[in-house]
Each structure stands twice: as C-alpha cells, then as structure tokens.
C-alpha cells in the first residue's frame, strides 16, 4: 500500500486529540488500526473485558452506551443494548466505571451512543462528562453533518473528538466536508445497512475507504459489516484500520468473559499485523 498513509503530519503536537494521535502513530509505524466495539454495562465483567482487549492489541476502544432505540444497529447490538439496560446500565454508571479504570484501559476510548442520550443530558454537560471520565472521542450516528454542529462545537470545547460517519451512499462532494469536520478518525460505513456480521465483505467497504483516502489525510477506519479477521485484513488493504462491533459483542453475549473476548481481538490483531505494509 502507498506510503502516503504515513505522510509526515504537520502540527502533530497541536490539534490532534489523543485518539487521532494514537491512530496516526500506528499508521506512521506502518501498521493497521484495530478498534473493537464493546457494549458498556453488558454483564458483570464488561469493564475487565475492555481492559483485556486493550492488552490484546486494540489501538482504541469504542464503548457503547446503550440506547432504547438504536436504529443503526442490527440484532446483536440491539440485544446487547436491551440486556445492559435491563441490568440497570445508565450513561452515568458506565462513565463512572470508565473513569475509575482509565489507567488500566491504557488506550484511548470513544463512546458510541445516540443523539438523544447527549441531548437529554445537555450537549455541554455530556461533553464534559466524557472528558471527566477520560473518554477521548464520541460517535453519535444519528447526527449527520447537517445536524452535528451544535454537539461538535460543545465537544471541541471540552476536548472530545467527534468522529463522523461517511456512508457509501454519499455523493463525492459530501466526503471532504465530512472529513474536515470529523476528529479522531473518519468512520467509513462498510455498506448501506445496519451493524452486523455478514458472510462476505461488501464491495462498498473497500470502495468507500478508497474514496475517503483520496480526500483526507485523517485516519480512515471502516466498520459495519466487517466481522472476521480476514474481512478486516481485506478492507485494510485500502483503509487505515477496521472497527468491529457485532462479532465482538456476540462473544460478550455468549459469556466468553474477558479472556474469550481478548482472544478474538488477538486474532484480529494478528490478521492486521500480517497484512501490514
């Protein structure tokens, strides 16, 4: 793959947050980024699981804060959401736990939830509560470019990196605007659809990564429909990294525990290390 990935970036010390700095660092070293998604509050050992996957080779970790109506998510993450909510998970309980374990987690984290969770708490308060918990980034998939401004301004002010999604359905003119407003990385959506493991990687995953790489220097990670180590390696022939949710959460739902989930993350890490250029 092209060395353009590792362009010497100006302003390395200033501007980039912890999440983006970590991902750029992996890329500059010639590696591919791996970011697993884990549902916060799912089971008794979710926090230990997060710490374990950090050790197993995650560059950063997405922590899902469950929402009652996750329209971007397929059955696996819906089920994880429902279970965590029925076990009493709240944004506050999850962030408090993450704050307490920040040193053990060791890699940057990003919270993924839906706009109403942030809106209900108030954008400013939600952004500062993320910062207080040591969370670096935030992904709110139902805030598209046109609606993200109010939140993203609050997040910027609190030092929280707002990661924007870029979909395969977006026309060309839209992509540079998304990349410019995104922080941390650009989240390329692998297919037109919801989260979940598919038998094969969609052609749109690589295509979307290539379209994004052509217009931005920011790390481009692809998720949604990336469910196996082989699929992650395939998309990373173009992308700077992969985000994997449902496959990881399936392990959590099966009760694999910290070691079981970490073992799967290690498989992804190995596949991406073998694919490094």
């Amino acid at each position, binding site marked *: 793959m092209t060395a353009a990935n590792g362009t010497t970036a100006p302003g390395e010390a200033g501007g980039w947050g912890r999440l983006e700095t970590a991902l750029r660092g992996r890329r500059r070293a010639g590696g591919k980024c791996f970011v697993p998604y884990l549902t916060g509050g799912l089971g008794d050992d979710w926090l230990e699981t997060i710490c374990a996957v950090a050790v197993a080779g995650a560059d950063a970790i997405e922590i899902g804060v469950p929402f009652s109506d996750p329209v971007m998510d397929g059955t696996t993450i819906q089920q994880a959401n429902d279970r965590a909510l029925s076990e009493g998970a709240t944004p506050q309980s999850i962030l408090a736990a993450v704050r307490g374990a920040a040193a053990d987690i060791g890699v940057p984290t990003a919270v993924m939830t839906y706009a109403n969770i942030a809106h209900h708490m108030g954008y400013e308060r939600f952004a500062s509560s993320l910062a207080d918990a040591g969370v670096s980034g935030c992904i709110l998939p*139902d805030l*598209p470019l046109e609606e993200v401004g109010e939140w993203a301004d609050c997040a910027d002010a609190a030092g929280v990196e707002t990661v924007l999604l870029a*979909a395969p359905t977006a*026309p060309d003119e839209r992509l540079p605007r998304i990349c410019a407003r995104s922080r941390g990385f650009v989240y390329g959506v692998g297919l037109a659809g919801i989260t979940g493991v598919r038998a094969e990687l969609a052609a749109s995953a690589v295509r979307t990564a290539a379209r994004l790489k052509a217009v931005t220097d920011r790390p481009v990670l692809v998720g949604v429909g990336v469910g196996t180590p082989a699929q992650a390696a395939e998309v990373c022939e173009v992308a700077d990294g992969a985000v994997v949710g449902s496959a990881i959460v399936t392990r959590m739902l099966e009760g694999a525990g910290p070691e079981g989930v970490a073992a799967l993350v290690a498989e992804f890490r190995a596949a991406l290390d073998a694919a490094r250029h």
Partner: protein
Amino acid sequence: MTETAGSAPGEFMGEPDMAPPGQFMGEPSADGRFGEFGGMFVPETLVPACQELDRAFRSAWGDPAFRGELDRLLRDYAGRPSPMTECPNLSEELGVRILLKREDLNHTGSHKINNVLGQALLAQRMGKTSLVAETGAGQHGVATATAAALFGMDCVVYMGTVDIARQELNVFRMRLLGTEVRAAETGSRTLKDAVNETLRHWVAVADTTHYCLGSVMGPHPYPWMVREFQRVVGEEARRQCAEILDGGVPDVVTAAVGGGSNAAGIFAGFANTSAALVGVEPAGGAAVGRAVPGIVHGSRSFLMQDEWGQVLEAESISAGLDYPGVGPEHSYLAATGRATYEQVTDAEVVEAFSLLSRTEGIIPALECAHALAWVSRARAELAGRTVLLNLSGRGDKDVDQMMGILG
C-alpha cells in the same frame, strides 16, 4: 371570509398574539425546522435519500400535472371529498354543536389513504419500485398495501407483535393485498419499534425503495410532506364549514394526536383563522403533555423519555396512538400556543366510542374517539359552541377489541 365572533376564549383557545397567524403551517425552514423542532436526525447513509425526497417532493408539489393526477386519484379512487356530518342527537346530548369530518368514509376507512396516494405517486415519479412502511393500528399499513397493489409496487410493512395480536383483521387485509407483513419483535413491540425496524430496512434499500411514512413525523421532509398530503382534509372542511356556518369557521377544531397526521391535516385548513385548535393525546402517550424535547426517529420534538433519555413505552388502548413521540410541528404549535393539547384516559375513550355509536349510528375508530372523549368531558366549557371534529377512521377494526371490553 367572515369568521364567527368567538366569545370569551376558554383555556383551550390559542393565544392569538403570540405569532402572526399567517406564519402557521407553511413551509419549514431550509434545515427542515418548525421553530426549534424538526430536522434530519438520521444516519449518514440515509441523508442522500432524505435529500432526494425533499427535491422530488418540491418539484412534484409545484407541478400541476402531479397535483392533477393526485386529485383524480383522491376523487375517483379514494372517494373524496369526504362529507361533513352534522350530529343533532349527539349535539343535543352534549349541548355542543358538533360537526364531523368524515374521513372514516374514505376508501380503506381512514385519512391514511390521502398521504399514501401522494407518496406512492411520488415514489413512482422517483423511479422507486418498492414501498416499505410501519404501522400501528394497521390503518396506514392497509392504506400503503392498497396503494402498492394499485401502483404495482412491492410492499413490506413492519408491525409490532403486540399490534399484530390486537389488529389481526388488518394483518389479513394487508396480506390479501399482496403485502408482506413483518413482525417487529424488539422493545415494546408496538408502533415505535415498527418505525425502528422500517428505518433499519430502508437504510439498506433506499435506492429502490421509498419509505412511505404514515404520520407527520420522521426526518425532514416527512413532517412537512405528510402534512401537505393531509391538507386536503382541512381545505375541504374549511369550505364545508363555510357552507354550513354561513361563511364562518367553527369555534374549535379538534382531532386525536399520536404522530399527528390527521390533526395536522385538519388544522392546516384553520391554522390562520380564529378557530381554536385542540389536539387530544392518550394520557399514556402524551408527548406534548409532558413537553420534554428529545431526538428519535429523525426529528427533534417532544418525546416521552426517562431521566437518561431512554425512550419510554407509550400505553394506550388505541394501537394507532400508542407512540411516545409526536410530529415536530405539533410541538411547535404547542410551544407557540397556537394549538393546545389535552389528554384523555382509556376509560373516557371507551365511553366516547359507545356514545357516538349509540347517538349517531357511527362507530368511530378508537383513535378519533379520543377527540370526542375530550369534547364530552369539556362540554360545560364548550356549551353553545361549534366544534369540528376530525373523524379520522371507522371503528370496524376495533370492534373485536371493544367486544372484549364492553362484552
């Protein structure tokens, strides 16, 4: 047009000074908002589809050929205009003069057909070959299935499993019409979850499939577009009232509100008159009544939610109103004071259902029985006034359920 000199406004009468009348129920702002409500809160993947729909609707709505074809369908297929019925027996019993806008007499038995014919015609114009829709009571599902059959389009309708159980006749109707009914088995397994499933379906197939949304909710342009497709109810009613009331308008225009499409349709004909507008919500699904804004299903509007912003499950006897949100324009009408929103209990609704059946020989859908339940409760306050009530649907679908309750 002369308007009836309203006597002293009751508490349900709007505050006429809060905003100039000409500004209500027009086009939303460029970012799809009515005041601070509305917007396009959808995943990136769906933004191009919503923007395409916005462009297509603007173009079609300004095209006389499209309008002419829709008018023809509404007349020859749906049976418009729907009549307006004076209710002498009911009026005498309540001491309030009541006029009913008879949307129950439309083809498929409710106002839903107005919106669906508009959207199906638009979908065809956009080159879409399939429709997908959510349904609660099944009225919108049946209307969408009907339009799909008429236009030769494939159709999938999502319905919560709780609603499938209480509205099995409508499930059969949809299947008879060639539509695939899919069960929404997550969450509360009612309308809210059917909307979630429909959005999840649409995100993967938006290039070939139009989401035929059934109410004045969802991302821009739906709240505006659906209201415009329902505006025909209000415009007809305005003309019919003028004939009956000697050029005047009623003192009060009332309708049930779940998502709020039948109310938006009839309000649109009177938003800029002296008539008070009263929406009636079920007590167990009163999004406007609680007045806490939130973001779900594509727009910012009043939303029933817990202390963390998790959406609450609505609880209503009527599947069609069993929804924790409300269309954003209703939030705006409430916030500006142009319309007021009342709540009624299931018990009051059951009583109103019987009342209209007994006094006028009209069995109403449980949804519009909510509006009558409010009129009945407020009869002292409304004494001597003229009230226009949108009878949005017929009660055949509810007879089975009511037999269980009234025995």
